[in-house]
């Protein structure tokens, strides 16, 4: 079965043209015109990637994002009006893995989707199990345990943790993490890293406000310490 992409967009013309462009990439595209439609469609059949426009009538994009995130760790790309508003942070906090601003080129969207799919499918077969205090990371199985209990991470959060874990004690800058996890270059949005680190901390840190595993090194980046 091919890759399924669910696009949630209320403007029919955009929806159709984006569908055509994504189908040219060889993907199967399912359309939803509203938040309700999207949730119904997703419940009916899970997608591999979800594309959500934040500005939706009825249930807005943030709520759709949160609802899907509660049920699944599917990669989500959201579409926002502007890069410099709080929308981006709000969307990332609602569970989106990446974002695009309107108007974007479909080529850019395809690149984002490919990066997300790569991340979702990458399990490092030979990678050894890693232990940091109570934190246990098993890359091969895509499993993280905290004091013996499974912790549920999204693919992006997991990828981020593994990047930090394979360089224990070394500081990784935002730029490096952006490149290795998201496939962005130097000019990627550092907020992607910051928000995902924050979300990661709420899941693996006993006290997210005073992290003991994923620590911030001021002005340089992040590192994982045991």
């Amino acid at each position, binding site marked *: 079965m091919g890759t399924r992409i669910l696009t949630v967009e209320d403007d029919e013309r955009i929806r159709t*043209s984006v569908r055509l462009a994504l189908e040219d990439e060889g993907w199967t595209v399912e359309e939803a015109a509203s938040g309700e439609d999207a949730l119904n469609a997703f419940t009916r059949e899970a997608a591999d990637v979800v594309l959500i426009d934040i500005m939706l009538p009825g249930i807005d994009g943030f709520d759709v994002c949160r609802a899907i995130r509660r049920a699944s760790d599917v990669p989500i790309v959201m579409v926002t009006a502007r890069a410099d508003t709080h929308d981006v942070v709000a969307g990332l906090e609602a569970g989106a893995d990446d974002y695009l601003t309107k*108007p974007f080129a479909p080529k850019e969207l395809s690149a984002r989707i490919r990066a997300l799919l790569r991340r979702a499918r990458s399990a490092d077969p030979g990678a050894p199990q890693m232990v940091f205090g109570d934190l246990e990371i098993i890359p091969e199985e895509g499993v993280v345990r905290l004091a013996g209990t499974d912790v549920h991470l999204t693919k992006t959060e997991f990828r981020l943790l593994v990047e930090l874990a394979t360089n224990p004690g070394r500081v990784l800058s935002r730029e490096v993490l952006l490149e290795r996890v998201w496939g962005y270059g130097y000019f990627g949005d550092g907020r992607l890293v910051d928000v995902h680190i924050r979300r990661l901390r709420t899941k693996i840190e006993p006290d997210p406000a005073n992290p003991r595993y994923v620590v911030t090194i001021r*002005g340089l980046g992040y590192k994982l310490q045991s």
Partner: protein
Amino acid sequence: MIRRLWGRLGLRARITGLYALGGLLLSLTIALSTLTLARQNLVEDREERAFSVAVRNAQRVENGLGAETEIEDVGVLLDNLTITEGSFPLLQVGDATRALDQAFDADAVPSSLRDLVQAGNAGRMRVRVNGRPLIVTGIPIPDTAAAYYEAAATDDVEDVLNTLGIIVLGVSAAATLLSAALGSWASRRALTPLGEVRLAAESLAAGELDTRLDPPADADLASLTASFNGMARSLEDRIERDARFASEVSHELRSPLMTLNASVEVLNNNRDSMTERNQTALDLLTDDVTRFTALVEDLLEISRYDVGTASLRAEPIDLVEFVRQSVDHSPYDVVIDVGALQHLVVAGDKRRLAQVVANLVDNAAKYGAGEIRVVVGHEDDFAIIAVEDEGPGVPEAERGVIFDRFSRGSVGGRRGHGTGSGLGLALVAEHVGLHGGDVWVDDRLDGSEGARFTVRIPIGDIPDDEEWA
């Protein structure tokens, strides 16, 4: 002529002048009447006294004078008179006269007084003998065909009057100066609200559209303040409406642009199956959709400044690395000159600074010529990014307007269209301004031909790692 000069003076100078003039007139009037009254009182008093003394003396002379008394014998008579200092008796018997003092002799008696006395009337006159002011009283002694004259010097009165005059004039001058000072103070006070209006107008002109005047304590000024504030409000409304309009239009354009971009891409995916004519048409369409998208993106970006929603997202940026990365991403060949700098960390908005560098490089590539150089340096608390080219440079007359929106320069046809949207350099100026810096263009520093665009931004406080997220 005077009117013209007067009209050219400032309001404050005129009010001060009027106050001074008023003060001068008033004090002069008071001074002159004071002097006149004082003179009258003092002089009359002195005349009265001199007259009564003279009358008394004349009585004595008359008593001592017999019918046969010769002029040679009157010396004793005169000696026995009550003569105060500064008074000089003179006795005339027949045609002969006898004076007691050289200072007042027969020649000093004015002829009109002499005639009056000869006619049998007493009289007095003010005269000046050898520069000395005298009151001369003449009293006829008809029984012996004699006349008694007495002169009283009034120079002490003159002295008093002169001193008084000087004092009064001094007071007048002081009063005039005081009036001028008062006028100056009053006009300054009266014009203070105007000064506030001026400051408010300047602030409005500088783009502080929410500038308003405080309601004044003075009811006379309330209408001025009210109409100023009304004007500012409608100006603000109007400018905001225009800005919102531009912003809304650009937002509305995003959806059709999305459709256009996606559809053009779908067409391009199937370009190979098209006829040559269709391919040409598609290429034209693709180019213009791309340009149109860039224009709308720039419009959206710049309208954020107009609507006031542009906010700086500062993070620590190492400009040395930043410029290297920018150049790596640039479609043009660019040389970097960072000198001996290893790192230069500033608090900046990476997305916006990237656009600044990209637009300046783009501008240099399109309207300059030769090698494009990006120079990084610092000066005091400022970081410098300069983009140089080897083109014809920018004429001085255009250097100020080149950062205006849709400005069209003469050299190179259309220098100023950084991104081809006509907004490239305007966006550069807005982005740099948001960082609290400035940008300008001049000639290359090494004197060779070419333009140098210099961006200067404060290094700023490096924010904490996660504060800006």
